[in-house]
């Protein structure tokens, strides 16, 4: 009974969020809309990282590379090879996920610190390829004039239309992730996080589960990357480098590593800090550094959980019993 009410509250909150997301861009400022688009795109990557790091306990310091793979594959296929942008996007997602799945088997023989090392190295290697394979990717100067998405005669070429597209995908990704977390696979993920040897002893092929989740997170990243490429119309290597991988970790941590909907909050906080504080110098980076340390030490579940704890404590104190 209690859980039923809780479920209602949750559905209401999600509904409120969705309504809010629908209303926000109607204020007509395309700048806010564009920032929210970027937030939505980053949130999609962050959810994948949450599934991998928060739920399965496997660190990835190279997630930006999957984001970049999605962007580059979609861009190159749709521009150079004139593939339909939707098809190019689908190929980008599938190819990136397949690559991640394949690389998962050798890489997940490693754990903890060594896994961090390997994913970091992998991310940089792929980044160097973006930079050096210039006859395909345009190299450092970048890849220009990427076509945009359209359905029938309707092109997603305005900020407003692209906003709804991105957030449509984002909400769908959130629901899918929530469902997976609450399923048999989600249980296996959490079991692996808590004890890998015990999971193996219960018949879970842990490397397979980890590789699947890596592939899923890579698919999310590739979806986000291709959306980014279609939105901006231009890509170059810097946004897909090591520092962005770190920034993604920051988004996941701020939102709560094991929190699906928190990813939106994390992506929003990190992006908005950059938007509003960067004009005053590198203060945003100082704050990221502090945030990462403080949040992970004080409230490993992230800011949203931390607030929830405070709320619960307050309401307990206020209630007469």
């Amino acid at each position, binding site marked *: 009974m209690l859980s039923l009410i809780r479920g209602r509250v949750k559905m209401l909150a999600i509904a409120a969020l969705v309504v809010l997301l629908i209303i926000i861009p109607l204020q007509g400022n395309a700048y806010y809309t564009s920032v929210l688009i*970027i937030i939505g795109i980053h949130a999609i990557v962050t959810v994948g990282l949450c599934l991998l790091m928060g739920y399965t306990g496997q660190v990835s310091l190279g997630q930006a590379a999957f984001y970049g793979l999605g962007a580059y594959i979609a861009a190159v296929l749709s521009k150079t090879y004139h593939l339909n942008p939707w098809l190019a996007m689908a190929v980008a997602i599938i190819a990136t996920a397949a690559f991640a799945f394949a690389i998962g088997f050798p890489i997940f023989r490693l754990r903890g610190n060594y896994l961090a090392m390997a994913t970091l190295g992998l991310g940089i290697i792929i980044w160097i390829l973006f930079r050096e394979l210039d006859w395909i990717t345009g190299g450092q100067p970048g890849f220009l004039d990427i076509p945009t998405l359209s359905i029938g005669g309707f092109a997603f070429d305005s900020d407003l239309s692209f906003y709804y597209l991105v957030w449509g995908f984002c909400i769908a990704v959130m629901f899918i992730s929530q469902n997976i977390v609450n399923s048999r696979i989600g249980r296996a993920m959490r079991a692996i996080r808590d004890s890998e040897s015990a999971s193996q002893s219960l018949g879970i092929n842990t490397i397979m589960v980890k590789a699947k989740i890596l592939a899923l997170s890579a698919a999310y990243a590739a979806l986000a990357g291709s959306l980014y490429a279609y939105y901006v119309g*231009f890509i170059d290597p*810097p946004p897909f480098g090591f520092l962005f991988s770190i920034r993604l970790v920051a988004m996941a941590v701020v939102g709560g590593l094991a929190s699906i909907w*928190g990813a939106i909050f994390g992506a*929003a906080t990190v992006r908005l800090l950059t938007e509003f504080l960067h004009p005053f110098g590198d203060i945003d980076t100082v704050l990221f550094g502090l945030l990462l340390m403080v949040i992970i030490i004080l409230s490993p579940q992230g800011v949203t959980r931390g607030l929830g704890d405070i709320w619960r404590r307050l309401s307990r104190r206020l209630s007469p019993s």
Partner: protein
Amino acid sequence: MKKVVFIALALILVIGIMPFTACGGAEEEYKIGAVLGITGFNSALGEPEKQTLEMLEEAINDAGGINGKNVKIIIYDTETDSTTCFTATKRLIEQDNVLAIIGASSSGVTMAILDTVTDAEVPLVSLAASDQIIKPVEERYWIFKTPQTNSMVVARVYDYLSDQGISEVALITASDGFGALGLEELKDVASTWGMTIVADESFDPDDTDMTTQLAVIKGKNPEAVICWGTNKGSAVIADNMKDLAMEMPLVMSHGIANRDFIDLAGEAANGVIFPAGKLLVTEQLPDDDPQKDVLLAYKADFEYLYGEGNVDTFGGHAWDAFTLITDAIQSLVDEGKEVDRAGIRDKLESAELVGISGIFNMSSTDHLGLTPDCLVLVEIVDGEWTLAEE
């Protein structure tokens, strides 16, 4: 469960923080936006650009502004990141409602906003080198730029080398966007000057040592080495060439046209030759040089504010961009026309200016308007910039 509620609340809060713009109504000031790479890889470019713009803003307003209205410069840092530059540009256009935009500092980041300014119909004056930014000119209707193009710079380098009777060169270029664009141009037009590229090496500006690449080059015995990069990496190259006792001429790019390069490379900087705007050798120019007065004035103003010997050509590009735009506003005012984005664009397209980077003659087919003679060759002698003998 509460989490979701909190996220919703947090988002509402966040949106609340975003100050809603006051749209409509006559603007009290002429607003010009700038997106500069103040942090990140291109900080050596963005910082003097920012300083120059702030200096000019103050100067023009102290002198009464334009038509009694102040000029306001709004600067955002791109972090040399195309995503950040993209949203910053949106912000300038949609929220700050600027008349024109200056930037970005480098080519890659500028590329990311070409579509945005074109769709929004806002004139952009870029401070980046690449030709691609303003070509093809039909598609780049709203885009202008002030720095000399790579092709001019490369032409100047090859001109010089072939005058010296040199035809076998080795290239060593940075792996960043600046180096990559230079490399592309250097390779593309080498044959026009009859140049043979005997070695083509690259370096990461963050590398600690480049003697390996230089040893490869040394083994190929080129008559000259061309290095394309910015301060730090280029200084290591100059230093390492001395270490390896490589005596052939070392020609560099305009990426080292600032004091820091000499400070870093020290002794090793001597003998390095590079093409640059005339600003670095202002005092040595003949008195009849039409740019000399402008250059002297900018140099004096800048160094008064930011220290002796600190002026560099990157700030000069910003000076040109600012002056082009404010001149355009002034002439719209003079003609009694409305000052708007389209008006400024039209004026930019017919602008004539004796500037820092050269003498601009813009036209509907040339959104730069410079000729190659705006570049001179500079040699570093005893730690000082010297106009090279040709």
